[in-house]
Structures are given as C-alpha cells and as structure tokens.
C-alpha cells in the first residue's frame, strides 16, 4: 500500500523536487522497502549516465574568442565610462537630442506614430542582429571575393532580383564578399565592405516585399551603428556598420551612383 502511494513520486524524489515533508516521509519508506529503494537507485543511475553522456560537445577556442570579442565590443560601445558621462562636450549633444526626441514625441503623438517608430526600430534591430551575427560567424560570407564581377553573378538564381555594385579602385572601401540573407521572410543580398578595419553591411531587398517601406528611408542610429537607407530601381538599400557616419554616407553615394 505504501509503495503504491510513493511510486508516482520517485522521479520527483530523484530530481530533488519533492516537498521537504514528503521527502522525509519517502526517505523513511525507502529505509524499509527494498523494491522502492532499488527503483530509486535505478533512476539515479540513469540520471548519472545521462549527465555524463550529455556533456559531450566542447566549443572551439575560435568560437569562444569570437563571442567574447562581440560581447566586449558591444560593451565598449554601450557601457558609458565616467569620463564620457563627465564630459559636457559629449553630454550636450545627447541632451539636445533627448529634448528634441521628447518634443517630437509630444507633437507627433503616441498612437500611430509610436507604432510606426516601433516598426521602424524593429527592422533596424533585425538588420543590426544580422550584421553582428554575420561578422561573428565562422563563415561571414558565402562568396569570398573583392571582385564585383564575381560577387554579383554569384547571387543569380539565389535571389529574385539583380543589382549593380560600384567600382572601388581609388576609394578607401574594399568588398569582402556576400551572402544571401532574409528580412521579414524576404530574401535579399548582404554584402560586406571594409573601410579602415571597420566592416559595413550593405543589405539589398525588393522594396514591395518589406513592411511600411516609407518609414525606412534616411539615416538612423541603430544600436550604436550608423545607417543609411534609400530606394533605387525598386530595391531598398540599407548600409549599416560601426564605421563613421561619413564613411557610411560615402559608401552609400558610391552604391547610389552605381545603381
């Protein structure tokens, strides 16, 4: 009879999830019931086997370094130091921006405008995620080439549109390669450019497939990244990276001129 009472709770006991009073009572039962004691031992044995077997995979040192670098890099961007907050030169523009944002919020209102901002922020957050995840990846680009005549044809058959890329000789920018990416379930192209050790992502998507395209234009500051966005020939371009706003603008101009 006692066994029947406890049989359904042996897993809870083995997992350390039984209430203290029940645990003490079950322990007393186990001292007098060999069958239940063996059953518990059996369960504990299986737990130990799974515990040992489950610790199977170890990450590579390379992956660890990449993640640590990403985290540290973001910390450096986000964590304000005492000097920065103490500097009025830095703080003043931020305060002006804050007042401007509050005033804008007051005049525009909170309803529809708030939802528009949230949607816009969502798109840029997704792009920032894609950019960070791509750079942290072991294989940031699927086609590795600095030659636009190699990169552009590689996308044929992989995305439902084509685009033009600029000639770069004489500029500070270099093309590292590209990959297929997705935004809101829309396939597009992601190109990685470099300028003075800063990587910049250029995303290209067919505009009609994107949500609320009119909200996406213009430069914004997304999670410390500088961005630029415009529409050309039915395609929506996003340029995003930790390079300076001037570099982002310069690369955007090269892409616009090529398109």
């Amino acid at each position: 009879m006692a066994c029947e009472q406890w049989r359904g709770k042996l897993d809870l006991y083995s997992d350390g999830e039984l209430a203290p009073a029940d645990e003490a009572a079950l322990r007393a039962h186990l001292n007098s019931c060999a069958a239940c004691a063996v059953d518990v031992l059996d369960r504990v044995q299986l737990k130990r086997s799974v515990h040992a077997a489950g610790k199977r995979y170890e990450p590579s040192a390379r992956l660890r370094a990449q993640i640590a670098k990403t985290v540290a890099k973001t910390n450096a961007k986000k964590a304000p130091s005492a000097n920065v907050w103490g500097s009025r030169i830095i703080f003043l523009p931020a305060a002006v921006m804050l007042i401007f944002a509050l005033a804008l919020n007051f005049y525009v209102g909170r309803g529809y405008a708030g939802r528009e901002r949230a949607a816009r922020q969502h798109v840029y957050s997704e792009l920032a995620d894609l950019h960070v995840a791509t750079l942290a990846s072991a294989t940031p680009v699927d086609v590795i080439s600095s030659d636009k005549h190699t990169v552009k044809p590689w996308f044929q058959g992989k995305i439902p549109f084509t685009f033009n890329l600029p000639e770069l000789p004489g500029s500070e920018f270099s093309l590292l390669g590209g990959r297929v990416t997705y935004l809101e379930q829309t396939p597009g192209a992601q190109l990685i450019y470099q300028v003075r050790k800063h990587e910049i992502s250029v995303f290209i998507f067919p505009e009609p497939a994107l949500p609320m395209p009119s909200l996406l234009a213009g430069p914004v500051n997304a999670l410390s990244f500088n961005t630029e966005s415009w529409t050309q020939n039915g395609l929506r371009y996003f340029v995003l990276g930790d390079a300076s706003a001037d570099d982002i603008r310069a690369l955007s101009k090269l892409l616009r001129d090529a398109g």
Partner: protein
Amino acid sequence: MRVSEDRPSASSFEDLAMPLFDQLYNFARWLTQDTAEAEDLVQETYAKALRGFGSFQQGTNFRAWMYRILRNSFLSSRAGLKIVVPLDEEENENILPAESTTPESILIGEANREMVQHALAELPIHFREILLLCEVEEMSYQEISATLGIPAGTVMSRLSRARKALRGLLQQNLEGGRHGV
C-alpha cells in the same frame, strides 16, 4: 526617457552570459546535431541577448532566458519546425508510476557512455531537450518550465515519458548488440 540605475548594465551581461558559453554550445550542438549550425546558433543567441538585455527583467532567471533565446532561435532557423508533442502525451499531467526493476534496467545500468549518447541523439527532440535541461544542465522544474514555456505539470509528465523513451531505446540497442554478438 530616463535610464534607471538599477537597469542591467552592459558590463554585467558579460559577467552573466560568458560563464554559460560552454553549456549553451553543448545544448545547441545536441539540438542541431551539426557543428557549424550550432556555432551559428550560439552566435545568434548572444547577438539577440545583447540586444535584448536592456529589457531583461532583473530578478528573473538569466540562464532560463538565455536558453529560451537559443531554443527560439533554433526553431526560427529551422523554418516551419515546431516541437510538436502529441496531445495525448500531454493531456495526462500525472507522472507515470515507477516501473519495477527488471533485468533490462540492470542492463541499462551497464550501458556505456557512447550507448547513452547514441540513444539521446535518437530521441525525438522534445524528449532530448528536456532530458538535457534536467540531467545535464541540472535545471529545476521551474527553470525548465520557464525555458520551454510549458507548465510545471507538463515538465514532470514529459520528463517521465522522455526517460521511458530513453530506457526503451537503450534496451533496444542493448538487445540488438547482444543478439549481434
């Protein structure tokens, strides 16, 4: 907008998240069954967690939060994949009664590490993930409930069924090996 001082700081993200790196990778590798995919999944998890850390509620379980991000990212990356659990399996929230010890269960005790790993990999994903969270990550039922987004009662019943399924596979493999000799 005022930034509250008790909001989690970016520097504390590193302190909280980096110690979880090895175990998150192990879990990702078990889920994906592929090294490159697991690496991408862990990277995506950290990128998303970094972005969302400002909205992470202090005082709630950070580990469960990270695992939930990883699991959701995994489900998103496998377009269309949902961890489907047969309804009848979750309807009965009672834990299955213990089964008496049999010669087979003694044999299971003799199963080596490789056999258990093989059986774990063979398990349906909803059984594999809950066993890993409970036995490898040593999460409480409450943590598992928060990670998987299921009630604590379902955690108990699913765990019980997962163990039963694992035993079944181990017995099957052991018997297969025995007959093969």
